[in-house]
């Protein structure tokens, strides 16, 4: 407990220290010689001011909700497709041999490179935005699910066979729970990549969302709003990852405590 307090104190003092230095540098020292500095890197006080403004007129929440909605839809669709597919690839060697080259060619293509095709296929709008984020989440989840299934200890399968398990029981009692730790890692990585794709996805024809907000503010040279958008994405990503870790702790007590 004491260690935890100490750690939190240390972590917050680093954050506060950076904010103080940033404020002094961009709010006091540099503007004396060049007043344009606040347009390039505004001090935290201006970012805060912007935050208060956008919170009080409700705009920030509109953007946050829209972005979260896109990320969550993309996340759910990715999971529904990638998890069963990953289990099938990891389990049936023949199937893996069949689809492996295809997967390995598609995987390195950055989601952003799909934007032109996405526009052609899905038009400009929400679906296209979600499609790009979906691509970002899909592959980490798929790859980790495959690894998870393959990492299941062969002796566990053998032991289950000598205990009288049939294929379906092996699958349900051994393969699925055994691959959960990797799967959870895949979900966390996937969510992270999803947030990364958000800004680029929202570049195309969206009128709401944090990515749109950042782009829009750039045209207006509202640098403090750009920074605000970036920070909100960072904080949301962090919060979601903590949520996933909590879920992991809740669902896999045997895994967390055995590390």
């Amino acid at each position, binding site marked *: 407990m004491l260690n935890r307090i100490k750690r939190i104190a240390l972590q917050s003092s680093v954050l506060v220290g950076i904010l103080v230095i940033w404020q002094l540098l961009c709010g006091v020292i540099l503007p004396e010689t060049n007043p344009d500095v606040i347009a390039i890197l505004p001090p935290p006080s201006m970012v805060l001011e912007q935050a208060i403004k956008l919170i009080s007129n409700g705009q920030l929440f509109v953007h946050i909700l829209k972005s979260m909605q896109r990320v969550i839809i993309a996340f759910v669709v990715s999971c529904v497709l990638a998890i069963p597919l990953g289990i099938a690839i990891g389990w049936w060697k023949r199937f893996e041999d069949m689809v492996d080259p295809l997967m390995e060619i598609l995987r390195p293509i950055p989601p952003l490179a799909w934007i032109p095709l996405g526009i052609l296929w899905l038009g400009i709008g929400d679906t296209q935005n979600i499609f790009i984020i979906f691509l970002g989440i899909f592959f980490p989840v798929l790859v980790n699910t495959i690894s998870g299934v393959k990492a299941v*200890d062969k*002796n566990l399968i053998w*032991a*289950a*066979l000598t*205990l009288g398990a049939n294929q379906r*029981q092996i699958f349900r009692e051994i393969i699925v729970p055994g691959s959960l730790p990797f799967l959870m890692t895949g979900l966390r990585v996937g969510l992270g990549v999803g947030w990364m794709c958000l800004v680029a996805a929202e570049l195309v024809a969206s009128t709401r969302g944090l990515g749109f907000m950042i782009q829009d503010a750039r045209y207006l040279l509202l640098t403090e709003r750009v920074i605000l958008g970036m920070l909100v994405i960072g904080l949301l990503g962090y919060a979601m990852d903590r949520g996933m870790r909590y879920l992991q702790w809740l669902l896999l007590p*045997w*895994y967390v405590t055995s590390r």
Partner: protein
Amino acid sequence: MDELEVRSVNKEYYSSRSKETVTALDCISLKVEGGQFACLVGPSGCGKSTLLKIIAGLEPKRDGIVLLDGKEVNGPSWKRGMLFQDFALPPWKTVQQNIELGPKFRGVAKKDREALAVELIKLVGLKGFENKYPHELSGGMQQRCALARTLANDPDMLLLDEPFAAVDAQTREILQEELLKIWGEELPQKKRKLVILVTHSIDEAVFLSDLVFIMTARPGCVKEVYRNPLGRPRSMAIKSTQPFLDAKNYLWERLKDEVLTAIKQGYQ
């Protein structure tokens, strides 16, 4: 079950390292009566664990047959229970859940398998640890749990693959004694289960067995069948008696050349 017979079993596998087909088992034949405790001893790499897995139905063989009471067996079955060197307990299942696994697979009602597990937990001395996960237990306790799990199915035969190799030397001695007790050393042979145990340890083989199959270095075949003259029941004290030491010396004499060959092959 009256008899297990392995008739001229061959096993080959393709080694991707040396890029050639390796003969692991060469025409293995052996016979064990119901209720006997048999040990397979041999140098590393002689295929004794592979043979056990073939009997369990987990590994395919090139040719030859495994017969139980004259009927050929193929594929695994709960009637041939197995223990593994690394215990093979799913880490996400508690002791209780692990022990219930076999009956659960066979469709035994929840209430019945719970009662059965409670009984077995008592038998192997894990009372109070029902709700622990495997990683919270010592190696010796994990293997006790695995033994109880296997016994929950009441199999005809126990196949033990170096079950005590991963526990410390003192615990190993205790577990050997407990195994004999749980197996029912004092029961008439008819009422006991047939056991095949694979081990490196001559000491362990002499202490536990009725019958020792001495295997040659790769490709493994049965060099000699040794009938253990020691009577039952046995306790740890027997290990310092002359007949025990004589048996050990004899087995070591017979095994030494094979171990030297295995060293030359690079296995030991």
